[in-house]
């Protein structure tokens, strides 16, 4: 099975996020980037499928957000090809534009299955996976927690999570796009010596794509940190004291009549 995996970079929340002078965007000069966690799981799931049934894994990414180390790590883990889509702007585009670019690149591949993280924390105007599926004109199933080779040729068995921790096991006919929430096992660790070797040996392919106009996007009017509210009140004393105080607070807030 030939699988395409989308890897996105997102701002790393280890850093304090600063707002730039315009007051409408993050200050990218002080931000650092990290691979989107769900995409990392998508890669792991793809590698597990390849190990189970053969085929190839091709990683597709936008050249944004210091993506190179993420791509070398993917190569070290076992990705067969790396497609890095060139951009004129080093910050990742919004999901609609990103989906259009990724769809163009993935169309050049003979990929029966496309795996992409079901969400990313910096998505403002919709989530990317269904937009990508629409761009590829393929069916989409999201919130997937594990994929296995299907019982019939041309299918996979996907485990989908519903609210309330209800799980469904479903047969998905390929080609398809799956939005991955989690792989069957945590993303594997790869020794740094292998990443260093991949840095020397890996060649990124740059597919030819047409950069769509960035006019269809959400306009941010103001970006701001949440204002701190009143401090928490720590209740102490005996159980009956605490219970009485709780009742008073709930009544004061109009929750208890």
């Amino acid at each position: 099975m030939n699988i395409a995996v989308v890897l996105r970079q997102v701002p790393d929340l280890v850093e304090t996020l600063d707002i730039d002078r315009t007051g409408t965007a993050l200050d990218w000069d002080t931000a650092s980037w990290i691979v989107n966690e769900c995409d990392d799981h998508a890669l792991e799931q793809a590698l597990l499928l390849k190990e189970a049934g053969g085929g190839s894994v091709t990683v597709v990414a936008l050249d944004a957000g210091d993506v190179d180390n993420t791509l070398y790590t993917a190569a070290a883990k076992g990705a067969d090809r790396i497609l890095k889509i060139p951009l004129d702007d080093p910050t990742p585009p919004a999901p609609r534009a990103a989906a259009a670019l990724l769809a163009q690149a993935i169309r050049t591949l003979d990929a029966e299955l496309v795996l992409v993280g079901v969400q990313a924390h910096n998505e403002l105007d919709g989530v990317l996976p269904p937009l990508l599926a629409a761009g590829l004109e393929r069916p989409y199933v999201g919130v997937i927690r594990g994929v296995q080779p299907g019982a019939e040729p041309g299918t996979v068995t996907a485990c989908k999570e519903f609210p309330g921790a209800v799980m469904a096991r479903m047969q998905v006919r390929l080609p398809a796009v799956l939005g991955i929430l989690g792989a069957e096992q945590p993303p594997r660790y790869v020794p740094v010596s292998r990443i260093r070797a991949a840095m020397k040996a890996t060649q990124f392919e740059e597919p030819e794509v047409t950069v769509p106009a960035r006019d269809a996007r959400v306009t941010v009017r103001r970006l701001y940190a949440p204002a701190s509210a009143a401090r928490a009140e720590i209740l102490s004393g005996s159980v009956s004291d605490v219970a009485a105080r709780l009742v008073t607070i709930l009544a004061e807030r109009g929750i208890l009549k």
Partner: protein
Amino acid sequence: MNPETSDGGLAVLEEIGKASDGASPLGCMQCGLCAASCPLGYAMEFPPRKLILQVAAGNLDRVLGSPAIWMCVGCYTCSLRCPRDIELTDGLWPALRDRSMQAGHQPPAELQETFQNLFKYGNTLGKSPRQRLDWARGLDVPVLDLSKERRPVDVLWLVGCYPSYYPRNQVVSRAWARILTRLGVSWGVLGAKEKSVGECERMFGEEGLFETLVEQNSKLLNEQEFQTLVTLDPHAYRALHAFYPRHGAWYPVQHYTMFLAERLEQLRPGLVKPVEATVTYHDNCCVGRRCQCFDAPRALLEAIPGVKLVEMQRNRDNALCCGGGGGGMWLDGHIVAHGGHRLSDERIGQAAETGADILAVSCPYELARFEDAAKVKGLEGRLHVRDIIELLAVSLGLEEVPAEPS
């Protein structure tokens, strides 16, 4: 070479021996002194002696997949007692861990996170590099950030990960900054540019990560002009002293106990405030057992008026490890899950047996490990854990004044 045959296994051991400082593991006579000396040997499927035996017998893959590979805490007891001088701690264990990962075995999850933090952020705690200097916030002495303002200094202090980020260790860092200033030496730090020195990563067998950190650190250090590199971390001292030179990076380095002991007479007139306490000292493994530096920390403690120094039954060469070295700091869960125990819990009991009020330490890991152990063993409030720096700072009148509660 097929490592799953006896000939192949012997070839692996020969290769490991050639890459280490000690004698070849092929010379092992299976005396068992290493296994008997290992503080966690009782819980290991393959203690050092059996590791060698199994590899020699062609069972490399079984060894590489064993949880035992991740149970060495780098105390050096086996290496120093081995009658054949086989370098087990710095040679055999890291080499087999490296082979384990290269063969596709996954290190324990808690360790993977530490590796990833180091590769991504240059520190074990997964903190922002921009917060490296947070320990100095509100400090009453100036801190020269050499990454921003390059100038010759007497001391380049490599602050280290825990002293930079971990709140308990930050108290020690501030005390150390005041002591350095009191000594009248010019000193600076590398600020946000500093990375972990990487000793524990090397012992994890993550040689690629260690090489990456050596390259990054040596590039930074080579840009600076300093007389002495000083570290609070015995593991960092060991790496800079013994392993950086192998990568062409040689620096005059001292652990802080060595640095201060050389300046004790300069320090002594200021040691006026008594610390009325019975103190016992825990010898860390890297500066103590491995580098045989036992007198410097004791000289510092004995110079403090009021301190009555008592020894634990196991001290100096024979001191029990705290369990935090060789990656053990991030392997407690794995070690306990496979039948071991936290050595720090055992060690603090030995400290309590002396009747001491204070357990003095000189390693950043030990504050957290022993303060946790004191809670586990019901010794909190009875046996206090203090870095030697903190005790010196009290006596010098440089201790931290707790902020008024707001």
